[in-house]
């Protein structure tokens, strides 16, 4: 009976997770299909528009704009949280009301002081509060724009940011952005609303979209929900007839934003980590059969989460029509994905829950990093021509990112090894051997992929500007990763390092990879910078120090390792339960 329970539990976890996700899908879809409120805001949100060179739903414009202004994706209006699309509609069609919303986040006290407000503690301001001081802001911003971006101080950056925020707002407000009028037989590009209105006045021919938007905005302005909903539905029908693909994509994107797969995946990765850590704890302390069961449950949950992660990644590829890695944000999503995939493969060979544990950590951390990199703006931005749709570039980025993934997997497994060995008595001979094999194999894999990735990058560079290798910071970062792995392997083959040495150097691999991934991007920023990259730099330093500390632990002489002491002191007492775990694992 108990055995049956142990066998079933992983499935229960998997099914429960899938069911919970299904519920979230239904919820997100209901949101996209229409809301119980008087206005069908969500349907308005699915209308395709063009902004920053990409066709996207109005909803995405609302979210990214509000994010840029206030750092949030929703807004409290009359004490109730309202979606970004409601705010955008107010900005476009209820201007007086929208001007009172405190949406402009201003962090710098000196910039705040420009507004002469009574309460200097408040950090979000309304358009109405800013407008009287607009002239001064423009003057300051002009002064700043003459200073090279690397030399700007915190005040100057914040002034410029405020100027950009207000410009974004004004463009929405005057309907110059997004480009709302789709291409027509007489015009093959998207157009801003105002321009289409002027053209209609000049030529006498009115684009049907102009009429539709006028009806929608008027109905909303005069608070006529029925007319508003009807006009939105009609306009969407027009799209279904003329450009069904654009509307389908827009619908999907609204669903994608509401579903937030990466957000849920982050929580699930944390759960995976907790389960796997529990398994490890049980294995070390009691050797109970539950250790194996927990490891299996963690793996089951990891597989489900990985599917969710894959769905998110695939959705972005579909929406963008580009390979999965296009910017720093998507590289973080992809590094996490690759690490989890490799961890699942490794776990297939060594069913100990260790790779699962590592996958939980790396999966959650990379998605949190991605979330923070999203910052403000659309994460599916368009790329510069040279970075666009080139076979070598696409394969280069993917290979190099998988190389990062493998390095981080080896690194986290090495961290598990060192922490288990030094701080606990649980690093049994069996765990020791398995971890060593896992790390060694992963490093070989990482060397292969980072080398191939670097080479593909060289081919791309040679094809694009005739320089296979240019010694620029990013290329050097990639070379460092290749050399690091080559160094570890040759040192091992030459007998210069043993297990402990491999582990310590694998952790060093984390530092090198973090440097190649983020450090090289921060080089140009310098110490004077503020804002996001400053925070990122602090985190990078913190990460490097943490890894150095772990390496220091790993370099302690073996007799100081708790695991070694226990193994030498009481070998039998510890070994028996470990063996027990092994058999129970095999049975499972």
């Amino acid at each position, binding site marked *: 009976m108990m055995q049956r329970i142990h066998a079933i539990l992983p499935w229960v976890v998997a099914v429960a997770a899938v069911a919970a996700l299904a519920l979230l899908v239904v919820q997100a879809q209901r949101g996209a299909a229409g809301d119980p409120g008087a206005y069908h805001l969500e349907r308005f949100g699915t209308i395709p528009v*063009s*902004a*920053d*060179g*990409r066709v996207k739903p109005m909803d995405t414009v609302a979210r990214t704009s509000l994010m840029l202004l206030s750092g949030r994706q929703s807004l409290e209006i009359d004490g109730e949280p309202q979606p970004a699309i409601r705010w955008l509609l107010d900005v476009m069609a209820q201007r007086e009301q929208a001007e009172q919303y405190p949406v402009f986040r201003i962090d710098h006290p000196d910039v705040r002081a420009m507004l002469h407000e009574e309460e200097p503690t408040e950090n979000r301001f309304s358009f109405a509060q800013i407008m009287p001081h607009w002239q001064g802001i423009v003057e300051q911003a002009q002064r700043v724009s003459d200073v090279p971006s690397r030399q700007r101080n915190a005040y100057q950056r914040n002034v410029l940011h405020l100027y950009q925020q207000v410009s974004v707002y004004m463009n929405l407000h005057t309907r110059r*952005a*997004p*480009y709302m009028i789709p291409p027509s037989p007489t015009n093959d*590009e*998207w157009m*801003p609303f105002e321009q289409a209105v002027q053209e209609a006045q000049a030529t006498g021919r009115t684009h049907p979209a102009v009429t539709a938007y006028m009806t929608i905005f008027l109905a909303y302005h005069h608070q006529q929900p029925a007319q508003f909903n009807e006009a939105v539905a009609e306009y969407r029908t027009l799209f279904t007839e003329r450009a069904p693909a654009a509307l389908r994509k827009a619908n999907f994107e609204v669903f994608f934003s509401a579903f937030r797969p990466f957000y849920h995946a982050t929580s699930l990765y944390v759960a995976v980590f907790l389960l796997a850590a529990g398994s490890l704890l049980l294995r070390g302390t009691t050797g109970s059969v539950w250790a194996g069961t927990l490891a299996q449950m963690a793996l089951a949950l990891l597989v489900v989460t990985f599917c969710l992660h894959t769905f998110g990644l695939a959705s972005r590829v579909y929406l963008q029509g580009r390979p999965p890695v296009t910017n720093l944000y998507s590289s973080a999503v992809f590094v996490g994905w690759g690490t989890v995939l490799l961890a699942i493969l490794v776990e297939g*060979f060594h069913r100990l829950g260790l790779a699962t544990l590592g996958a939980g950590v790396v999966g959650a951390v990379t998605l949190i990093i991605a979330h923070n990199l999203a910052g403000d703006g659309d994460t599916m931005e*368009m*790329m*510069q*021509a*040279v970075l*666009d749709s*080139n076979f070598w570039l696409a394969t280069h980025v993917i290979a190099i990112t998988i190389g990062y993934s493998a390095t981080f997997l080896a690194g986290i497994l090495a961290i598990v090894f060192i922490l288990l060995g030094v701080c606990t008595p649980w690093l049994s001979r069996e765990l020791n051997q398995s971890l060593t*094999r896992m790390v060694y*194999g992963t490093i*070989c*894999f990482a*060397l*292969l992929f980072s*080398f*191939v990735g670097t*080479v593909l990058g*060289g*081919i791309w560079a*040679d*094809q*694009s*500007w*005739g*320089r*296979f*290798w*240019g*010694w*620029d*910071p990013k290329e*050097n*970062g990639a070379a*460092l990763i290749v*050399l*690091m792995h*080559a*160094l570890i392997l*040759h*040192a091992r*083959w*030459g007998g*210069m390092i043993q297990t402990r040495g491999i582990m310590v150097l694998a952790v060093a691999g984390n530092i*090198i990879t973090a440097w190649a991934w983020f450090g*090289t991007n921060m*080089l*140009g920023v*310098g*110490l004077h910078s503020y804002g996001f990259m400053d925070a990122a730099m602090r985190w990078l330093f913190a990460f490097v120090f943490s890894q150095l500390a772990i390496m220091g632990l790993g370099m302690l002489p073996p007799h100081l390792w708790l695991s070694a002491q226990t193994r030498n002191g009481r070998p039998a007492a510890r070994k028996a339960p470990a063996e027990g775990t092994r058999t129970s694992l095999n049975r499972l």
Partner: protein
Amino acid sequence: MPQPLHRCLDALASLKLTVALFALSMCLIFAGTLAQVHGGIWDVMAGYFRTPIAWIELQLFVPKQLATVPGVVPFPGGYLLGGLLIVNLLAAHAVRFKLSAKRAGIIVLHLGVIVLLVGEFVTGLLADEGLMTIDEGSHASFVEDIREAELVVMDRSDAEVDDVVAVPESMLTTPGRTVRHDALPFDITVEQWLPNSRLFNVPPGTPTRATLGAGLQLDVREQPPATGVEGNTIDWPTAYITLHRGGRPLGTWLVSTFIQNPMQPVTVDGRTYHIALRFKRTYKPYTLHLLEFRHDRFVGTQTPRNFSSRIRLVDPTQNEDREAVISMNNPLRYDGATFYQSAYKEGDVGTVLQVVRNPGWLLPYVACSLVALGMLIHFGMHLVRFVGRAVR
């Protein structure tokens, strides 16, 4: 083999040397990356990677805001480390490796590494690249090396050919130095040399260092050198020069890479010469005419979507006259050189082509195929064995 020689070969073949070389290479690359925060990529390449000895400034590792650290340390440079790696590999194969199927992957891989290193040597020594800037509707037959400037003195009195004397940058960078040459109609004394600069208009009548020419209305400000981390930025040199004829000063001119056209006239004894500081030119036997330049952007943004140049290639020596389109990732290969779409002139009025001549361009491709193949064979064999064991 005599004993000492054997011992020497063993040391050269040792894995310890390999690991040490890897570690040193990593240090060098890291320092060479940091150096690009304040230095130009070409200087760093020459000073760190394409040299036997690199002199590393200690200041690199300490932010200037924290402390000033003087001093440089010598460090093995790219040529030395690369050369030693090749020696190490060859020695290892001579001493340790036996030809066997099990070793096949490693041998192929190491062969690839050698070709890769040799390829970088060849590129470093023989490759040469420059820019060709052509306005729409116009043509060009020379390549500019944006890393080096030259001062040219031109005699246009002959209707058929212009008589040009070019003074290389290396003779201009020392203030106070006087350049004398029989071919020059006057002596040139360098008053001031600015490796990177910006020019500003000043109201007429404002005193400037120049006494004649375009410099009367211009002021110059020194700029920090363009750094590697900023990407494709260029240093724009400017200089003040005083011209003498028979010990008698003719005046002080401002010459700058910013004002290459039109050239400034200098009249000596009733004869007019033209002077300009410009990027070093290499003339080609052929001419490229820019027929059309296209620069598309994404709707409503400044983000470029693509650029392309439709050009006409005219080479009388080869009796060639044809059209070609050069676009992003789609270069033109001609006469041993490759023309890449690199940039555009402000306002899309012209194109900038990167012209690269690299006799070793194929080597990295061969090398990388070998290394990747070797790794696949080697790790593949391991993986098959491991999976086989795991399955059993």
